[in-house]
């Protein structure tokens, strides 16, 4: 240490500088060789960051709901429990007030929202360019916060996913990611939101992969998984969360018992589309009233309030009631009544326009119908357990409503951690999926996206082309750049090939880190070797008008991570660079686009 310090002091300033520089380059090369962060690792890193942020926003949202709920009701307990303790007029007043506040926030939000921007995460990923407006997302989430805290019969996972996706979109825009990567990052945010809302990382990753991206290719599933895992870790670390639905063990007594479960699948497959249709009718009905937004939401809140006077359990997303059903704490007669009122309450909350999700209400419906079906089955076949039917019903209903049976099976398994139900669950979910599909061509989510696309055809994502994937301003040097300048460029950017362009911006070739790394320790050549001396001219290039598969062919031929994109006019003017990672993600998207277009036209 002392020696090197003395040497540094005694050396001429320029030489000391050069040595310092060389040392830096050597560290960079060592890091590149030993840790070599490829495009994939960088993507996974940001997916992890987005996951952590998603976990934090979800916890934040949940805490805010509890806080506001406490402020409104004076009770720190869950929504159903506190409504149970409220007197009649408050049961009516609080949801009405919640509807009113939701309306006020949405109205204020309309004033501050500027220009056309995507407001929904699903839209931003599947149809848009991955840009989610901060203002409108915050408005929607705040409005949802008021509605949910005041007892609206709607899921809180919607705003959680929205917030998490918006954070991801902001992160991606800060990193200046191209469209496809930005959309993938927003998808990671959505997966993180679901993973943290349900403490279900596998389900979260598969929800987004199956429903929104429509693919489980590793290029997109990998980042989703990392993001979901990060979010779940944050939630578990900060809030001692466990699996959401802790259920008693079930036994599967005979192989013949699978029969009634398959029938349950059929029933759920018929009822789930009906449930979704009524939600849609409710929405149309509220719109037909031609009320101002504020009045519409207040009315929606008031309907929930009226229902809550007799049945306070209709308030909230239905989680605690579902749990009670699974534990067999509700008699079937009152459940039969409750399910009707809960259906009505969800239809008024959703129909009046409270922003929120219908995922948890769907689970409630599934559990209720499953339980009621199970009670009937139990009367005929006493060894059958109605609670097990409730559990399987949840999965079947979810598979039928979302048209995503894989996600439904995984999600149910993950939320209950009950392996006993896996066989009937798989069977019933698959049957329900096909039953629902034959009854109604599209799922809850596909329908939402189709309507969005119809309403705003211009906002539909244009066909992905290579030009959209080009990252501008790659690191470049002139052919006259000295060896030292080349080293500087390699220090400041994490690349393996430095592009050399002439004074007119034409691409001449690359200086490869691989070629020069062994000579970094030679200060003597720092000035005597120029970029032009060590230029590799035979490096592949691509035109921004090339087809995506052609670009893939270039990557297949040489083991490089990025290729320079040059003007198609023959001048070889450098436009930017194309990364292999962005291309693979885009190709996966293209495949999905084609598939979803087929669905839309059906």
């Amino acid at each position, binding site marked *: 240490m002392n020696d*090197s310090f003395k*040497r540094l002091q005694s050396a001429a300033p320029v030489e000391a500088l050069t*040595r310092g520089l*060389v*040392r830096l380059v*050597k560290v960079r090369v060592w890091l590149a060789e030993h840790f070599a962060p490829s495009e994939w690792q960088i993507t996974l890193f940001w997916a992890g960051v987005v996951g952590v942020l998603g976990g934090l926003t979800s916890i934040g949202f949940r805490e805010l709901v509890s806080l506001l709920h406490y402020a409104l009701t004076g009770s720190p307990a869950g929504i159903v429990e506190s409504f149970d303790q409220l007197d009649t007029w408050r049961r009516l007043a609080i949801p009405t007030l919640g509807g009113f506040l939701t309306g006020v926030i949405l109205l204020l939000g309309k004033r501050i929202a500027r220009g056309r921007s995507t407001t929904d995460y699903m839209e931003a990923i599947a149809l848009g360019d991955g840009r989610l407006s901060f203002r409108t997302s915050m408005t929607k989430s705040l409005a949802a916060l008021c509605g949910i805290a005041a007892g609206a019969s709607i899921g809180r996972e919607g705003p959680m996913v929205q917030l998490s996706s918006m954070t991801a979109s902001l992160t991606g825009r800060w990193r200046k990611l191209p469209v496809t990567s930005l959309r993938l990052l927003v998808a990671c945010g959505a997966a993180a939101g679901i993973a943290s809302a349900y403490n279900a990382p596998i389900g979260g990753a598969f929800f987004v992969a199956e429903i929104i991206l429509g693919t489980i290719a590793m290029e997109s599933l990998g980042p989703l998984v990392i993001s979901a895992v990060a979010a779940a870790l944050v939630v578990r670390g900060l809030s001692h969360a466990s699996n959401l639905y802790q259920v008693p063990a079930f036994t599967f007594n005979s192989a013949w018992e699978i029969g009634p479960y398959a029938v349950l699948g059929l029933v759920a497959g018929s009822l789930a589309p009906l449930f979704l249709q009524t939600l849609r009718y409710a929405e149309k009905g509220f719109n037909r009233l031609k009320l101002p937004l504020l009045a519409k939401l207040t009315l929606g809140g008031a309907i929930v309030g009226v229902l809550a006077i007799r049945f306070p359990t209709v308030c909230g997303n239905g989680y605690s009631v579902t749990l009670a059903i699974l534990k067999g704490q509700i008699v079937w007669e009152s459940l039969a009544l409750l399910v009707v009122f809960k259906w009505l309450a969800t239809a008024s909350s959703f129909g009046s326009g409270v922003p929120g999700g219908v995922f948890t209400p769907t689970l409630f419906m599934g559990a209720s119908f499953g339980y009621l079906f199970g009670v009937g089955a139990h009367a005929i076949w006493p060894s059958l357990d109605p609670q097990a039917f409730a559990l399987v019903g949840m999965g079947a209903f979810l598979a039928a409503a979302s048209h995503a049976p894989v996600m439904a099976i995984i999600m149910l398994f993950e939320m209950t951690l009950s392996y006993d139900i896996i066989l009937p669950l798989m069977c019933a979910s698959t049957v329900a999926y096909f039953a629902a599909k034959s009854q109604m061509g599209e799922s809850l989510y596909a329908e939402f996206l189709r309507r969005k696309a119809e309403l705003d055809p211009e906002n539909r994502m244009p066909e992905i082309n290579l030009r959209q994937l080009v990252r501008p301003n790659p690191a470049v040097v002139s*052919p*006259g750049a*000295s060896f030292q300048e080349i080293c500087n460029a390699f220090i400041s950017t994490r690349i393996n090939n430095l592009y050399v362009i002439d004074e007119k911006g034409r691409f001449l070739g690359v*200086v*490869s880190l*691989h*070629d*020069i790394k*062994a*000579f*970094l*320790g*030679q*200060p*003597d*050549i720092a*000035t*005597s*070797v*120029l970029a*032009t*001396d*060590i*230029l*590799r*001219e*035979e490096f592949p290039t691509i035109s921004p008008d090339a087809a995506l598969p052609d670009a893939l062919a270039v990557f297949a031929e040489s083991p490089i991570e990025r290729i320079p994109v040059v003007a198609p006019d023959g001048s070889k003017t450098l436009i930017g660079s194309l990364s292999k990672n962005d291309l693979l993600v885009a190709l996966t998207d293209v495949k999905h686009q084609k598939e979803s277009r087929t669905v839309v036209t059906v």
Partner: protein
Amino acid sequence: MPSPTFNLMPLLQLPSLDAALLDLQSRDIGEVLKEMFDEAAKSDAMADQEKAWADLMTRHAAGPLALSTDIALPHARTAAVKRIIFLAGRCGAGVAFDAQHPAVKLVFMVLTPKEQPAEYLQLVAALTARLRDPAVRARLLAAKNQNEFESVLSP
């Protein structure tokens, strides 16, 4: 002596010289280059003399070619050679190279095939490492014949 921490060079092996002109006749850098290039042109590795000369001149115009006050390294990467052509020239009286290098005594000419940037770098690195030692330079200037010159250059 270079600091031990900077010993990243894997191989300080110089290729053998194609020719050593120990008594350059020219007294002008342009003529020196021509004189040495004519010798290089005799190599079986030379594919296109005109192109190689043009590339050498282009590179000569582009930037510094002197290693120190008394050593010059004219070089070019060119598609006109089949392998690296490496020549040495000596001019005891010194040739004016440019304003900063009024008396260049040793000239090393390198013509490299385009696709061998790493080999070229290795040659330059090895050469500069060898010539850094003043004793080596003195012995090169004093060498009586090509064999001696070559043995001093790559012992």
